């Protein structure tokens, strides 16, 4: 068990990543991130880069060629990094890319909320219009059960509230059922070094992974399985990643970490030597914000481009 889980003196060196909660195999996080980056790179080279260069890379055999080349390139790069002090800089870069992708996923969540809000506003607008026209046309009569305000309200309840309630109920039932199962299961199953809350956290985390996959499922239709799996691996790997704080890492790693500290510290603020872990966490938040900001920019530009032809179509011919 790692620092915070064990408490005591080692709690002072607790890393900030999720990898702390459970003792994952050490290479799980970098391997997950690496697989994600590889999947995304193969997709990017075969699907975007080669067509942009005028090479038809849609054939399976050519994709295999590209995959071999990319794997060779990355293995060489990791070998070169492992032979020098650059490995932690590469690890930091992978982590930051994973955080950036997480930021884009957050913007997607915001877009979904905005979509719901727009639909609710449209419903409210329809309610006001429908209510006033119903009032005008059926003056002196009360609104019938089939139309007007009552009908609109019922359709909203059926469409959103019932659906949301069902989903919340299902989620609550799942969480309670899984929790009870874990607690009851603990009487017959030995979790080894792990406590019940840790096992429960792992179960909930795993279900969150499936929920995340469900949330970004439209990307599967649009981009294909390679980038879809790549994004999942990147986000999960970045969440698990566990940078060791200064003082625990071996001397060669420490020197690389100090280099990274110097690279990402802000000298004019006079912060001095930041603990590496804190610096990495701050850099991760920066990458998250950068990813979210860039994704927002893309959304705005994309929406404007989509609306421009609509406006031009709506303009009367001169």
């Amino acid at each position: 068990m790692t620092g915070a889980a064990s408490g005591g003196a080692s709690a002072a060196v607790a890393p900030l990543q999720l990898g702390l909660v459970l003792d994952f195999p050490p290479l799980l996080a970098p391997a997950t991130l690496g697989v994600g980056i590889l999947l995304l790179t193969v997709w990017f080279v075969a699907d975007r880069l080669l067509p942009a260069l005028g090479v038809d890379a849609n054939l399976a055999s050519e994709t295999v060629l590209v995959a071999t080349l990319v794997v060779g390139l990355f293995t060489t790069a990791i070998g070169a990094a492992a032979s020098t002090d650059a490995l932690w800089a590469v690890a930091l870069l992978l982590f930051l890319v994973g955080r950036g992708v997480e930021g884009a996923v957050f913007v997607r969540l915001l877009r979904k909320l905005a979509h719901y809000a727009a639909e609710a506003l449209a419903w409210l607008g329809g309610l006001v219009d429908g209510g006033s026209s119903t009032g005008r046309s059926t003056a002196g009569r009360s609104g019938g059960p089939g139309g007007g305000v009552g009908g609109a309200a019922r359709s909203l309840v059926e469409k959103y509230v019932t659906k949301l309630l069902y989903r919340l109920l299902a989620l609550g039932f799942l969480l309670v059922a899984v929790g009870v199962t874990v607690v009851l299961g603990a009487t017959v199953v030995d979790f080894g070094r792990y406590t019940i809350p840790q096992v429960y956290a792992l179960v909930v985390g795993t279900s969150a992974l499936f929920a995340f996959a469900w949330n970004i499922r439209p990307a599967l239709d649009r981009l294909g399985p390679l980038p879809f799996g790549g994004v999942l691996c990147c986000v999960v790997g970045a969440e698990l990643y566990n940078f060791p704080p200064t003082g625990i890492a071996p001397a060669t790693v420490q020197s690389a970490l100090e280099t990274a500290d110097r690279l990402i510290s802000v000298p004019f603020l006079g912060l001095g030597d930041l603990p590496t872990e804190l610096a990495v966490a701050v850099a991760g938040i920066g990458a998250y914000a950068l990813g979210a900001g860039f994704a927002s920019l893309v959304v705005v530009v994309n929406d404007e481009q989509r609306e421009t032809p609509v406006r031009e179509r709506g303009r009367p011919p001169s």
Partner: protein
Amino acid sequence: MTAALAAVSPGDLLADYGAALLWTGFAATAVAGGLVTVAALEARAGLSLPLAAVVGGCAALGGVLALLAVPLVRTALATAALAAAVSLVVVLGVVVVAELATVPVSS
């Protein structure tokens, strides 16, 4: 307790495998480079498959021999691979973020 954390360091785990990884990468890159040469010669230059395979095989073999014999070639290829991988990862991050942002939202 701290031993588990120290072992999390990939630098520690991979330190002994740097050379092995480097040579595995060189081999994979040489094989892929040879195959890409064969495919390009066949598709672009109109060579028959056996002839393209001979030329591609010779190119890959020449590359491997140069890697084995000349340290500067090894250093250059390793540096280029590292630079290319880092650049690809950065470009990739930007592309994936842009793609994710434009995936349609459904209720």
